[in-house]
């Protein structure tokens, strides 16, 4: 759609002009970056690699009330977010936007999940292309890229003195209008395109995913998983920081007589996750859990929604304390000798 631009020093003004939006942008909490609601546009900066915690929390908060009720009563009051309230994620990286478009499949599948979807509908995603990909990015290998438009309503390029904005949807157009952006010239468009191509070249890591989804199930009993699971801590870093991981737990909580049913992030890396009340656990050790995590992203999910549930943002690699490197695993899986998985 439209090509726009705004001067670097106008960033604050642009944000200020987005009155009718609740705007979220990367902000520093101590040493870590996280998407926060913009309170003072003046100290928003877009000079960042990527946030530690992905913006998935904006659609799928770590803890979310499903409904409230009084103990003893049978009236429940759902707390579904209001879609009419316009929100904007400003400066989101293409990989994280891509993640939304993947997870949409799951939340749209069969029973629609109103909590997630209402937020999605009401939210405009203004992306920021990566000029300098990080060390462990591999977005191009999984259908994304430093300037991928997937899932975005608009995509910004940092051209130094100005930001070039390419609106991709009506929502994107609305944003451009609301922000009163000036039209951009061909030069800018070219510069942006150039930046995109260069960035693509700079992406250091990659994996050829061809054949992986079909092969993984055949490696079900393969010992190669243990090379990784043996040092796995079974913590939730890889999954909690993954923009496409979407699993959750549901629990009832009560304060005196006010109670709620809430859902909170859960992870297949915890043993409680799949533990039966009987004490039987279909995934008794980290081997099965690691296998499930990888297989889910690269086999089960594609089998269901034929898209790989990974956007190559590299978070799980960057933050894994024991260097369990998903690219390494996939690589090994390709070398691994397929064995006929034994069944009952």
């Amino acid at each position, binding site marked *: 759609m439209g090509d726009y631009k705004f001067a670097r020093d106008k960033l604050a003004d642009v944000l200020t002009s987005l009155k009718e939006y609740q705007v979220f942008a990367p902000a520093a909490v101590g040493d870590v970056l996280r998407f926060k609601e913009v309170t003072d546009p003046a100290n928003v900066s877009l000079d960042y690699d990527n946030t530690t915690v992905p913006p998935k929390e904006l659609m799928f908060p770590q*803890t979310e*009330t499903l409904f*409230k009720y009084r103990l003893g009563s049978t009236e429940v009051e759902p*707390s579904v977010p209001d879609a009419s309230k316009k929100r904007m994620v400003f400066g989101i990286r293409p990989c994280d936007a891509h993640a939304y478009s993947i997870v949409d499949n799951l939340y749209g599948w069969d029973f629609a999940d109103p909590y997630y979807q209402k937020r999605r509908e009401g939210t405009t995603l203004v992306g920021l292309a990566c000029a300098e990909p990080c060390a462990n990015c591999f977005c191009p290998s999984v259908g994304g890229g430093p300037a991928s438009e997937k899932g975005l309503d608009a995509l910004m390029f940092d051209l130094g003195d100005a930001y070039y904005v390419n609106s991709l949807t009506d929502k994107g157009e609305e944003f451009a209008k609301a922000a009163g952006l000036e039209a951009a010239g061909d030069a800018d468009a070219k510069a942006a395109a150039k930046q995109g191509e260069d960035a693509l070249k700079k992406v250091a890591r990659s994996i050829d995913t061809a054949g992986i989804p079909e092969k993984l199930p055949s490696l079900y009993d393969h010992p190669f998983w243990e090379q990784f699971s043996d040092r796995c801590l079974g913590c939730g870093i890889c999954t909690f920081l993954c923009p496409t991981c979407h699993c959750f737990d549901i629990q009832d909580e009560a*304060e005196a007589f*006010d109670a*709620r049913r809430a859902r909170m992030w859960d992870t297949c890396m915890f043993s409680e996750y799949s533990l039966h009340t009987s004490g039987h656990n279909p995934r008794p050790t980290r081997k099965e859990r690691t296998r499930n995590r990888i297989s889910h992203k690269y086999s089960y999910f594609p089998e269901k929604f034929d898209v790989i549930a990974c956007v190559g943002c590299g978070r799980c690699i960057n933050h894994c304390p024991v260097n369990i490197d998903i690219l390494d695993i996939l690589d090994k899986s390709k070398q691994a000798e397929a064995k006929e998985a034994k069944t009952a």
Partner: protein
Amino acid sequence: MSEEFEPNIVAFLCNWCSYAGADLAGTSRMRYLPNVKIIRVMCSGRVNPLFLLNALQQGADGVLISGCHPGDCHYLEGNFYARRRFMLMRKLLEHVGVDPGRVNMSWVSASEGAKFADVVEETVAKAKEAGPMDQFRRRQINW
């Protein structure tokens, strides 16, 4: 604020000395503030320091643990363990920014009804000093 603020205090008393001491305060018709609510346990050594954390989280403005004087424990050693545990837990909470006045401990024997009454007054006073405990109290955050 503080003048009408009435702190709420959860107390853990050992059955053999302090709880009996509290009873004695009653039978001797001593008067003390109603802010302290007592939970009876068999021994101060039973009190898991996490109880106290839990009490503060639930909204108690202070806690009191009371047991037999050192050496008089009905179970010989329980109060010695308790002493260590709460000394440490108090320091830990202090480090997190919890006013140490919220964590109180006392030795009250079955014969020290008067002392128990004093302990209550002092505990309440300290909690008043510290003000309402709302640092990490369970509230309905983004409910």
